[in-house]
Every structure is written in C-alpha cells, then in structure tokens.
C-alpha cells in the first residue's frame, strides 16, 4: 500500500458522492425552472457582468486587515497541536507573535481604518 492510496481513495469517494448527487437530483428531482434558477450559481453576484461598477476603496483596507488575522490563524493552528511539547517557551513566543500582530491591529484602529465613513 502506497502512502498516496488514501488520497486516491478520497478523490474517488468525493467524485462518486458528487456524481451521485447530480445524477439523483437530475433524475428524481422536480423540475420547475425559472430564469433565476437557470443561471449559474455565483454567491449572489451576476455570473457575467462587465466591470463597469465601482467598488469602494475601503474594501481594500478590510481585505488587508483580513489577511492580518488570516495569517495569525495559519500559525495558531499548528501551534495549538504541538502546544504541550513546546512548553513555556512556546507559549511566550506565541504571545510575543500575537503582541506584534496586535500592534499592527492597534495601528490600523488608531488611524481610523475600522471607521466606515
């Protein structure tokens, strides 16, 4: 057994389950099409639109702040897994890391990045 067999199995299982759902839905399901239902699903956005609309520049700041905390999470999860082995030093290091991140957050807050005006 190769170590990649598990991955192959999960690929096949995932493929079978999704294929099964699509097949069952299209054969057994009730069909009552409307214009909206026939459009591709795009989380509420129009699937095909020209980029003519304006997007508020403030979303840029929100996205940057999101990344700040996203990166924090990327480090926090593995840290939590090996927390016991790292001991006190690991705890202190992580708090220093969080402290530095918080400085960034406080800076953004201080300079009004969180005020949506």
């Amino acid at each position, binding site marked *: 057994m190769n170590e990649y067999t598990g991955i192959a199995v999960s690929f096949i299982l995932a493929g079978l389950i999704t294929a099964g759902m699509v097949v069952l839905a299209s054969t057994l399901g009730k069909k009552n099409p409307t214009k909206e239902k026939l459009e591709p699903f795009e989380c509420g956005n129009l699937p095909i639109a020209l980029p003519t609309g304006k997007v508020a520049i403030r979303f840029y700041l929100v996205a940057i702040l999101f990344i700040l905390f996203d990166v924090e999470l990327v480090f926090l999860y593995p840290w939590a897994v090996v927390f016991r082995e*790292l001991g006190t*030093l*690991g705890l202190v*290091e992580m708090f220093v890391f969080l402290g*530095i991140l918080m*400085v*960034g957050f*406080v*800076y953004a807050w*201080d*300079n009004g990045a969180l005020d949506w005006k």
Partner: protein
Amino acid sequence: MNGATLADLVLLTPELILVSAALVLMLMGRRTRGTPFAVVLTVLAALGSVFAACWVQSGETETAFSGMVAIDGYSQFFKVLVGAALALSALLSVRSIDGERVPRAEYHTLLLLASTGMMLTASAVDMVAFYLGLELITLCSYILVGITVDRPASNEAAIKYFLLGSFASALLLFGISITYGLTGTTEFAGISAVLSGPGTSNGPLQLVGMGLIAAGLAFKIGAVPFHAWAPDAYQGATAPVAAFLASGSKAAGLAALGRVCLDAFGAETPALSATLVGLAALSMTVGSIIALSQTDMKRLLAYSSIAHVGYAVMGLIGGTPEGASATMMYAFFYVFMTLGTFGVVIALGERGRSVNGYQGLAAQRPGVAALMLLFLLALTGIPITAGFVAKFAVISNAVRAGHIALAVLAVVCSVVSAFVYMRIAVHMYMKEPEQPAPSRIPIAVCAAIAVAALVTLIGGVLPGTLTPWAIAP
C-alpha cells in the same frame, strides 16, 4: 531541533532593538505628530544596534536558530555599516520630510524595518533566512519609494520598482529552489560541501541555479543588466529615501552577494567568476557613460551608484578572503561618500535637484561647496580620499585574480566618471551664481554631512584604520 532559546535571541540583539523601536513608533506615531520623536528614536535605535552588534560579537563565529544566522566578524562589520547608514539617513530626512507631506512615524518605521532586513541578510547563512532578509528590505523599499503619495512621479517609481523587484525576487527564489533540489540543503555550508564533494558534475542545472541567484542579487544591488529600476526609483523617491537605497540597500546586497559567493558557491569559482566579471565590466561602463548625459542630480547619482557597484563586485572575483575584504571596505566607504553627496543635495533643497543648480555655489556657500567637492573627489577615486583607497584595493584584487583587462577597464571608467563628477565641481567653482543662496541648513543635516565627510577623509588619510575589521566570511 527545538524552538529558539534565549541565547539565540541575545545574538540577534541589534535586529531586536530596531524592531522594538519600529513597534513603539507605530503605536506612538499619532500621539507624537509635530515633534522630532520619530527621528530621535530612530537615531537612538540605530546607535543602540551598532553598539549591540559590537557587544554581541565575541570574536568567534556563533550560529543561532539551528544554523539560520551566523554572528561573525563579517556580519558585525555590515551591521555597524547598516546602523550608520540608518542613522545618517534619518538625520538627512529632517529637512525633506518637513517640505513634503510624509507621515513621519510610518516613514521611520519603514526605515527601521528595512535596516532590520539588511542586518538579517548580512547574518544569514541559510537560504531561507537570506531570502527573508532580502524580502524585508525590498518590501519596505517599495513603500518608501512611493511614500509621497500625492506626487505622481513617486507613484510611478514605486510601481516600476515593485514590478521589476517582484520579478527579481521570483528569479532568486527559483534559483534557491533549484539549488536546494540539487544539494538537498538550504544551508550555505551544506551547499558548498555538496558542490565540492565527490561525484558532483558541474551540470547545467547547477549553473542555472547559481545564475538565477546571481541575477536576483544583481537586481538588488542594481548591477547592469539588472539596473533598469534604479534611475527611475531614485528620481521618483524623495532624496533621503534615494540616499538610503543607494547606501544601505547596496551594502546589504553586496554583503549577501559576498556571503553567497564565498560560503555557498565557493567551489563554483570559474563560472561564478565569469558572471561576476561580466556584471562588473558592464556596470562600470554603462553606469559611467550614461551618467555623463544626466542633468537631474538624483538620476546622475543613480547611474553613479550603478558604476560603483561594478567596482565593488570586482573584489569578489576569484573568491579570495582578501578580495572579499576589499569589497567590504569599498561598501563601507561608498556608503559614507554617497550619503554625504546626497546630504549636500538635500541641504540645497529645491536647488540641489538639477546639476545646473550648483552654479556658483562656491561663491555663495564656500563650506558646502568644499564638502561637495570632497565627496565628488572621493566618488571619482582621487587620492587622500577614501574613494581612492577603496578603488585601489578592488582593482588590485582584479589584477591578482588575473583579470588585467578588467582592471584597465576599471581605470578607464574612473577617468570617464571624473568628467561626470568634475562637471558639478566646475559648476560650483567656475560659474557665476544664477539662483539666490540656499536657505539655512538644518543642524541634523549638517551633522550627517560632517560625519560622512569625516569618514571619507579618515579612510583616505589613514587607509589602514578600518582594515582589521573587514574580516571576510
């Protein structure tokens, strides 16, 4: 492989001081507007890190963070140099920032963080720490170049610098990954051991990896043919930022190049030598010749810095410790010469921007003109200035390595560059003043110029003073 211990952190005290100062500035920035808090804190942090760099060094090589960084004479030398460049750049910023709308705290935070990257690069003996340090420098530099957001030229310069810079970073990273794939290690010592060990053929892939790393580093130091970003970035940036890029960034890039050439690719001497000879010859020639036709001071100094990188790289050819030591001395003196020249450009304000602005300066401000003349002579490489000592050492290294033609070319380029620098001297001393005398120069800018002038003179009069500290890796 444990995490970092306290002993590891103590070895990185210089970097930690700079980072702490940067964090304090971020928190205090809004509260200290309109006060010289940021400049004072930056200069104090820079001096603190210089002292820490001297204090941490015990005389023998120590490694920290599982062999990621080494604290040795080489890193100490460059940390002191970076600290000095940071302090002088911060002092030079006093005038320019008052004139333009720049957020003071953010500006100094970025200077501090970029210097942290430079110090880390000088210490790095592992490709990962090395890349981290270089990226910290360039990411801060992009923002510094574009920090005057209301000037379109500054925005344009930042975008150009960013696009070319990220491309160069990608090249560097690709080279690192190829080298890692071939040798199975990211440590410089390990790479060198595998490359010089038995059963290694100098395969094409190895040359590609080395070439890509050299190309990425050549971009960072602005060597021809990877120099295209430098003139635009220097011209678009405010003068203190250009001064910081031309001094600190170049020194860190040279430190990185020296470390990679001697520690990691020591075994690869023939191919690496050929690459370095090419970079040096092209940079000297192109930099000196294009500088002839410049009328904007910052652009002229950008081409001059390109030429000087060419001279500095000459010391690394052959891969001998004496040569590397010559490059270190060149980097050291070049930083002070160029900071001094930029200092005069900043001191003259609006007038210092174009070459014509220097007409008749000697009649109006004899002291400033004399200092400018000193820096110009040093940049040309005339005796009794540090420029001569530095240039002599690298050229004799090229002769030792058997590249007589390159040494001759270097001398010819020096003569060509004399026309560039002496043109300004002629403007200062032999023309009638056309513009009113410059306004009073802030004391901080004066101090920075004086320090730069002092080092330039001492280096020229007592050439042996600094040599014992220039220890190759």
